[in-house]
C-alpha cells in the first residue's frame, strides 16, 4: 500500500461523462467529499470519442423513461451546470431500410407515445420533401422526434467537472487506480499511482475498463469492450439539424454546431478488446455508403478519424447499481454505446442511491447486474 494521500466519502473511478456527472450529482445532494480518479485526461475514454447524440426513441418503456429524464436535465444544463455544451434539439431521424425493422419501429413509436414522447412516422416522400438533400431510395419509413438532439460531449464533461470542483469535489487526472482495498466485504480505500485514498464507497465508472476495474473489487461484470470508429469532415454552414441514424443501414451522422459532419458505423467483425487504432477500410466503407445516401458529402473532406470503445453488456443496456457482494461498491458501466445521452439521469439516480439509499427521480433497478441471472434478457434493439 502506498502513502495515504487523502480520504473521501465517495471515490469515482473514471473521468468521463458518468464520473464527472456523478461527482456533480453527488455534490448537488450535499455530498461533496468526492474524488474522481481519471487515469488520463478528462473525457479521454469513450465520452470524448463518441458521436454526441441524445435521443429518447428507445424500444423499451424503462429506457424511454430514463432517456426522457436525461433530456429534461440536458434542457437545463446551461442554467444548472453553468456551461454551454452546444446542446441542440434538432431531432433524431431514424431511417429504416428493412420491412421487418420498419414494423418494429411502429411498435416502438407506440411505446414511446404511451410515455408521452412526441414522435412522427414519416413516409419516404415526406422525408424527401423535408430533407431534399437525403437520397430516399430504398427507404421504407422513418421516425422523427424533434426533442431528440445532440451536444458536445467534451464540453459536457468539462462543464460537469468544473461545476463539481466549484462545489468541493476533487478531480485527479492522470491518476490511475491500481487496486481497490476490500476488507470484510467492504471497500475501504483506493490505491492509485498517486497514492492511497481512503473511502466509504467506490463507483466504477471506468467505461471500456469496467470489467478489469470490477475485478479489483473481486466482482465479475459481464461487459466487453468493442472498437467503434468515427470520423469528422470539414465544416459547412449549418443546414442539417438532426441526427440521422439507421440500424439496418448501420450508420449515424450529425452536423455539429461548428458545421462539421460526424459519422460512424458498427463493425460486426470487431473482436472484443481495447484497440484505439483506425482502419482505412472503415473510411472506404463508410464514405461509399454515406455518399449514396447523402450525396452532398462527396464534396467534403475528412479532417480527423479516431476510434472509441463501446462497453457492451449482454442486452445492450447499461449496468447500473449497487453490488450485493461488496455492498459499498457501485457501478455505472456497460452503456453499449449510449452512455453520454443517459448520463444525466443515470448519475442523478445513482447519486440518490448512494446518498439517500433509494432513487427518487428515475427507477434504475431494472439496470442492476442481477438481471443477467435470469435466463431471458430483453435486448435493446435500437443500437448501431
Amino acid at each position: 500500500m502506498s502513502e495515504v494521500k487523502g480520504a473521501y466519502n465517495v471515490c469515482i473511478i473514471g473521468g468521463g461523462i458518468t464520473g464527472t456527472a456523478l461527482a456533480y450529482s453527488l455534490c448537488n445532494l450535499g455530498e461533496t467529499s468526492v474524488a474522481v480518479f481519471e487515469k488520463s485526461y478528462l473525457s479521454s475514454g469513450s465520452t470524448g470519442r463518441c458521436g454526441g447524440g441524445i435521443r429518447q426513441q428507445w424500444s423499451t418503456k424503462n429506457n424511454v423513461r430514463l432517456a426522457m429524464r436525461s433530456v429534461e436535465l440536458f434542457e437545463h444544463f446551461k442554467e444548472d451546470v453553468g456551461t454551454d455544451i452546444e446542446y441542440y434539439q434538432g431531432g433524431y431521424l431514424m431511417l429504416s431500410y428493412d420491412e421487418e425493422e420498419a414494423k418494429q419501429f411502429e411498435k416502438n413509436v407506440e411505446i414511446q407515445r404511451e410515455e408521452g414522447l412526441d414522435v412522427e412516422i414519416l413516409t419516404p416522400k415526406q422525408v424527401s420533401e423535408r430533407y431534399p438533400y437525403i437520397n430516399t431510395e430504398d427507404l421504407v419509413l422513418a421516425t422523427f422526434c424533434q426533442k431528440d438532439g445532440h451536444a458536445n460531449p467534451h464540453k459536457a464533461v468539462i462543464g460537469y467537472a468544473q461545476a463539481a470542483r466549484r462545489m468541493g469535489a476533487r478531480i485527479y487526472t492522470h491518476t490511475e487506480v491500481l487496486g481497490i482495498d476490500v476488507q470484510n466485504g467492504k471497500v475501504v480505500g483506493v490505491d492509485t499511482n498517486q497514492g492511497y485514498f481512503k473511502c466509504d464507497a467506490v463507483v466504477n465508472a471506468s467505461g471500456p475498463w469496467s470489467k478489469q476495474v470490477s475485478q479489483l473489487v473481486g466482482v465479475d461484470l459481464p461487459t466487453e469492450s468493442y472498437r467503434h470508429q468515427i470520423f469528422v469532415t470539414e465544416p459547412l454552414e449549418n443546414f442539417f439539424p438532426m441526427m440521422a441514424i439507421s440500424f439496418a443501414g448501420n450508420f449515424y451522422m450529425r452536423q455539429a454546431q461548428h458545421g462539421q459532419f460526424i459519422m460512424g458505423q458498427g463493425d460486426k467483425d470487431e473482436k472484443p478488446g481495447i484497440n484505439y487504432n483506425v482502419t482505412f477500410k472503415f473510411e472506404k466503407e463508410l464514405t461509399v455508403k454515406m455518399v449514396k445516401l447523402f450525396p452532398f458529402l462527396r464534396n467534403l473532406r475528412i479532417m480527423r478519424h479516431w476510434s472509441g470503445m463501446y462497453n457492451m453488456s449482454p442486452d445492450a443496456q447499461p449496468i447500473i447499481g449497487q453490488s450485493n457482494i461488496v455492498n459499498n461498491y457501485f457501478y455505472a458501466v456497460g452503456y453499449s454505446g449510449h452512455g453520454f445521452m443517459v448520463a444525466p439521469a443515470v448519475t442523478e439516480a445513482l447519486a440518490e442511491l448512494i446518498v439517500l439509499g433509494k432513487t427518487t427521480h428515475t427507477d434504475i433497478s431494472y439496470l442492476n447486474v442481477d438481471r443477467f441471472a435470469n435466463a431471458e434478457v430483453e435486448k435493446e434493439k435500437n443500437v448501431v
Partner: protein
Amino acid sequence: MVDNQAGGKRHVDAIVIGAGPAGLCGAIAIAESIGDGTKVLVVDEGIEPGGQLPKQTHKFFGHEGFYASVRGFEIGKRLVDKARELGINFLMQTTLAGIYEDSIVAYDRNSNSVSEYTADYILIATGASERFLLFKNNTLPGVYGAGAVQTLMNQYKVMPGKSFLIIGAGNIGLIVAYQLLQAGAKVKAIVEATSKIGGYMVHANKIMRLGIPILLNHTIISALGEDRVEGAIIAQVDGKFKPIPGTEKEIAVDTICLAVGLQPSVELVAQTGAEIKYISELGGYVPVRDENMKTTVNNVYVAGDLSGIEEASTAMIEGYIAGYNIAQKITGKDMSEKITNMKNELVEFRKGPFAAKVREGLKKMGISFPGGGYREEIQQMPSSLSRLKAVIECPQAIPCNPCETSCPTGAINTGGNINGVPQVDYEKCTGCGICVTKCPGLAIFLVQQREEHSIVGIPYEFLPVPEKGSSVKLLDKNGKYVADGQIDRVMINRKEKTHIAFLKVPKGMEGVVRHFEMSTVSEESQAYICRCEEVSRNDVEKLIDSGITDYEEIRRVLRIGMGPCGGKTCRSVVLQIISEKTGVPISESRLGAFRPPVIPLPIDAIVRYAKGVGTDE
C-alpha cells in the same frame, strides 16, 4: 570674465575641458578654493553641461556624499547649479580643437567662430568614446551606440526604434536596456560575448525579472535589412570568441544597440605632450599620471574616464583631487587635508572586486590601491517574517551604501566598509520601505507572511502605476510567470519616483516573486495561436487559469488544432503556453493525440478509390 590679452587671446587661471562629473567637480574645487569662479573656464561640446549625466535616468550608486540614490540627470543639474553659483563660465557646444604650443583653440559650432585661450593650468576630463564592433552590415541605419540611444531617448525624447537587440551585458548595456523598457520599447535580448555578466548583478536582475534574456557566450554576426535594420543574426562563440557554426539564430529587431565598452578620449591630452601608455585594464591608451592626477606635463591634470574607464563616483572624486591640487598651486595655500580626504574616499571606492581591474591598471603606473576588507557573506532571507521586513538581494560587493545611511532605525549595515554586502538587523527593521526607494540597484524588497497569503513589496519604476486591487501575473527573478496575484496597495514616491507595489502572493512564494505584469489583454494575447479555428492566446490562457491544463482537454474545448492544419503550427505553441503557466517543462508535457489524416482527405477521392478496388456499396 576672462582676461583679454593682446592678440585676442583670453587668459584664465584654469581651463577645464569637459563638463562631465569629473570636469564639473574639478572646476568646482578650483573655484571654491580660489574664491573666484570667473577665473575658471569649462569648455564642452554638449548642448548642456553634465557630460553623460543628463542622459542618465537611473539612480547612482556610491554614498550620499557623492549623490548616491540620486538620478544621474539630477546629479548633473546639482553640479552645474553649484558651478554657476560659483561664477564658473561655460562654453557650451564648443569643441576644443587643439592644444597648441602657443594657445588653446576653441571652436564654437553655434556661431561658427574660433577663439584662443591661455591658461595656467589645464584639467582635461574628456571622458571616453564608445568602442565599435565589427560585424556585417554594421553601417545600416538602426545600428547605434548605447550613448546615442540614451541621448536620443533621454535627452531629446526621441525613440530610435521599437524593438532592440543590445550587444554587451556590462553596466551600460544593462542600464540602457532598463531605460528602453521604461520608455516602452521592446528589448528582445542582450547578448554578451564573455561567459559572465560584466555589470552589477543588481542591474542585471532588474532586466531579468522583466523576462529579458541575457545570452552569454553570444555575439552578433550580422545586421539584417536592406535600407535599415530589420533584424540580426547572433551566434554562440567559443572560448576564443569565434562564432560556432550552426548556432546562428535570427532575431527580428529594428535597432541594434552596441554597449561593448569605452575607450579613453586621449586626443587632447596627447597634444599637451603628456605621456600616453597602453594599459588594457584602464581601457586602452591612457595618460600617465600620478596620484594627484597630474600628467607628465607639469600643469596638465586629468580626471574621470580619460584617466581610466571607471564610473561616475570615482570620476567626481578624481575631479576634486585634480581641482584641489590645481587650486593649491594657484593659491599657494595648503589644501592637503581636502586632498587626503578625497584620496581616502577613492581608496574606499576601489576596494571592491569590480575595481580589481582599475587597481591592476594603476599598479602599472606605479600607483597602488588596496583591495579587500569588506564583507561578502550574503544574508539569507529569514524563514518566518510575520511583520513587514526588508529583504536585500544585493549579492556582490559593490561600493554603495544608501540602504545603510537612509535607514531611520539603523537596521541595515554594510559591515563597516562601503563595499560590504548589506545585512538587515530584523529586530530593528520596521519595514518602513525607505531603503527600498533609496536602493539604486532596486535590490530591496519588503516581505510579510500573512495567514492567507504573503505580501511582497517591489520597487517599481514603470508607468502606469498599477491600481490597488488589480489582478497581476506574478513573475520570478527571471521574469517567468509563477502565479496570479493582486496589487494589495501602492506606496507612491512622488519625489524620487521609485514607488513600491505591494503584491498579494501565494504563501511560500515570498522568496520567489520579484516582479509582476498587468493582467491586461495585450495585443499579443489577442493574436490567434490557432489560425484555422481562430483561437487566441488569451483564450488558451483563460482556460488554463480555470484549471484545464491538459493539451487534449484544451483542444477539445477550444477546437485548437482541429482545423485543416491539424495542429501543425499551434500544438507546440499551446504546449509552450501550458509549460509557461504550469511550470511543467515542455519535455514532460503530454503531447496529445495525432490523428489521421494528416491533411484533409477528399471523400470523393476515397469513394472513387474504394469503388475501383471493388468495395461493396
